[in-house]
């Protein structure tokens, strides 16, 4: 199949081949079962760890393989997503959980917590959302009160991806409720800490292989050494994390849409009606052409944003939001169209496209709904053009 090169590094191309083969041989045979049972893909993540693929975003000095190129990690997410985003979100959420440590953590914290993530022995999770703090993340109510060399956490986090499965959690809690968003701090909390328990596993529409749980903190004492940065810097880490993590959601969307396109084209070539393959109908082949064009456009934008982040471009929030919103919207469209191409068969669980369509919806919701993304883009435009606007 013809593929654009995008000036990818040798490492990125190597990763593309490795993860593509891995996803085909290890994930594809079990994705329907994982979707049906909702079992967490423990074996798959363990094997990715053995293959040195859990530390693509972690710098070499902390045991990973990252040396300034974010594309290998992004492409690993994309290729896993091509087969199953229930698996890829479990993979990517570990990186998301590690991001606050990478961005704001001290050298000691990095050394202690990143090495086991890089080797794949442990996984991470990112805990911001609460029952009453979704898009309005500044209104979180989980508290952390300093007591000697400890902080005491109380509160509940909701819909935490990898909840219960991960060992290392980056948890956002209010240390000064009078300062609003500036009163939020971020803590590293390890599984097994007394007072830290899990709620029930959610039963979801899609990404059913992933584990989504409540985190419950009841007088949970966390060492003060686990505070990331200073008190009150939590919201900065949260937002900076989103700047670099949203392209990851876009990569999931690109991979998922590509997977749906793959299925749709292959089916259209073999399905015969009225004595010819259905792809021979112009109406259908144009539909496929539009699907393919959307996938490539989304990929191009996503890669461009990530390469700009690597190049040190500032004010990236708008662009991160753009690739997230665009790629996830087209993923919803392309997966829906793929079901249409399959006709009645597409609606049946024997074929993978109905799962892809169910899975796609979450991409428009998590890591900031697409409405929030458009807010970010709109606000940025308003701000940027303020300087050039003539009265």
């Amino acid at each position, binding site marked *: 199949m013809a593929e654009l090169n995008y000036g990818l590094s040798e490492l990125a191309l*190597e*990763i593309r081949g*490795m993860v593509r*083969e*891995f996803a085909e*041989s*290890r994930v594809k045979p079990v994705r329907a079962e994982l979707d049906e049972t909702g079992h967490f893909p423990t074996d798959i993540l363990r*094997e990715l760890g*053995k*293959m*040195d*693929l859990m530390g693509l975003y972690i710098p070499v000095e902390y045991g990973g*393989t990252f040396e300034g190129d974010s594309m290998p990690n992004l492409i690993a997410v994309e290729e896993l997503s091509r087969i199953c985003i229930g698996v890829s979100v479990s993979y990517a959420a570990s990186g998301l959980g590690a991001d606050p440590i990478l961005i704001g953590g001290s050298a000691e914290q990095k050394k202690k917590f990143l090495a086991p993530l890089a080797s794949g022995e442990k996984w991470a999770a990112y805990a911001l959302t609460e029952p009453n703090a979704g898009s309005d993340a500044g209104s979180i109510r989980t508290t952390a009160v300093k007591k000697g060399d400890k902080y005491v956490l109380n509160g509940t986090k909701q819909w935490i991806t990898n909840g219960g499965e991960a060992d290392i959690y980056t948890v956002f809690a209010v240390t000064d409720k009078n300062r609003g968003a500036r009163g939020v701090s971020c803590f590293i909390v390890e599984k097994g800490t007394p007072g830290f328990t899990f709620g029930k596993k959610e039963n979801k529409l899609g990404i059913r292989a992933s584990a989504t749980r409540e985190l419950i903190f009841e007088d949970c004492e966390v060492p003060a050494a686990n505070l990331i940065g200073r008190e009150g810097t939590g919201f900065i880490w949260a937002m900076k994390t989103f700047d670099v993590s949203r392209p990851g959601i876009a990569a999931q969307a690109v991979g998922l849409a590509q997977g749906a396109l793959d299925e749709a084209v292959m089916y259209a070539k073999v399905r015969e009606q009225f004595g010819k393959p259905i792809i021979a109908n112009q109406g259908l082949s144009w539909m496929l052409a539009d699907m393919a064009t959307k996938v490539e456009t989304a990929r191009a934008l996503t890669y461009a944003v990530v390469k700009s982040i690597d190049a040190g471009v500032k004010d990236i929030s708008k662009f991160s939001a753009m690739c997230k919103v665009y790629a996830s919207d087209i993923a919803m469209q392309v997966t829906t169209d793929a079901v249409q191409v399959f006709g009645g068969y597409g609606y049946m669980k024997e074929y993978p496209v109905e799962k892809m369509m169910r899975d796609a919806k979450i991409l428009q919701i998590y890591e900031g709904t697409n409405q929030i993304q458009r807010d970010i883009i709109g606000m940025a435009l308003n701000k940027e053009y303020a300087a050039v606007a003539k009265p």
Partner: protein
Amino acid sequence: MHIVVCAKQVPNTTQVRINPETNTLVRDGVESILNPFDENALEMALQLKEKHPGTKITVLTMGPPQAAEILKEAVGRGADAVVLLCDRAFAGSDTWATSYALSIAIGKLEKPDLVLFGKQAIDGDTAQVGPGVADWLGIPCIAYARKVEIADGQATVERTYEDGYEKLEVALPCALTVVKEANVPRMASLRGKMAAKKLNIVPLTAEASGADPAHLGLNASPTRVVKIFSPPPKTGGVKWQGEDPAAMAQKLVDLLRERKLV
């Protein structure tokens, strides 16, 4: 512990098709791969290494220069050393001559505790080289092993046979040929692949191996292929299509009863 894994590069025979017009093999687009059963042997070695730190794994193959690819694959998965036995003098070797050549190459290595083989290669399907090499080396061989545990210089092995399996015990050194159900072979790691890329594999020639030239290649091979042909294409019988499943089922049972088969 030193484990030698003997491996072979084979064409992926599941991709081979027969051209129905000429009734000849269509090889185009058929990739060369590490023999699947040898993957199980390598995986068995790698799992033993995980259980017994300090274990060294050497992978040995005999073949053309391109066979270096499977050695790189093996290093990618965690093999410590590789040997490519490569020389025109080996061409045309049957299992007798192949067994000899491999045993000579193993004799040049640090003395192995365990020599592993896949149960057979998917191109030749002979299953003869593993026991053959063991005989040249003068060590016992357990064919069709699906499980092994090593303790105190002894191997406890589960060997499959037609109806089940046997539990066996043998002192090291020994050879095993490994069946598919033994394990699920891992894929190469990123660091392993990087190490493999840097690898410069210098072929071991017939002369350097010290093998007796009279025992090598086609001339030393007792067997000769005199003819290769494609099996005659089969023609099917009747085909029922588009009828109600119940009607077709009844028709079949009636027919079988008429022929007194049931």
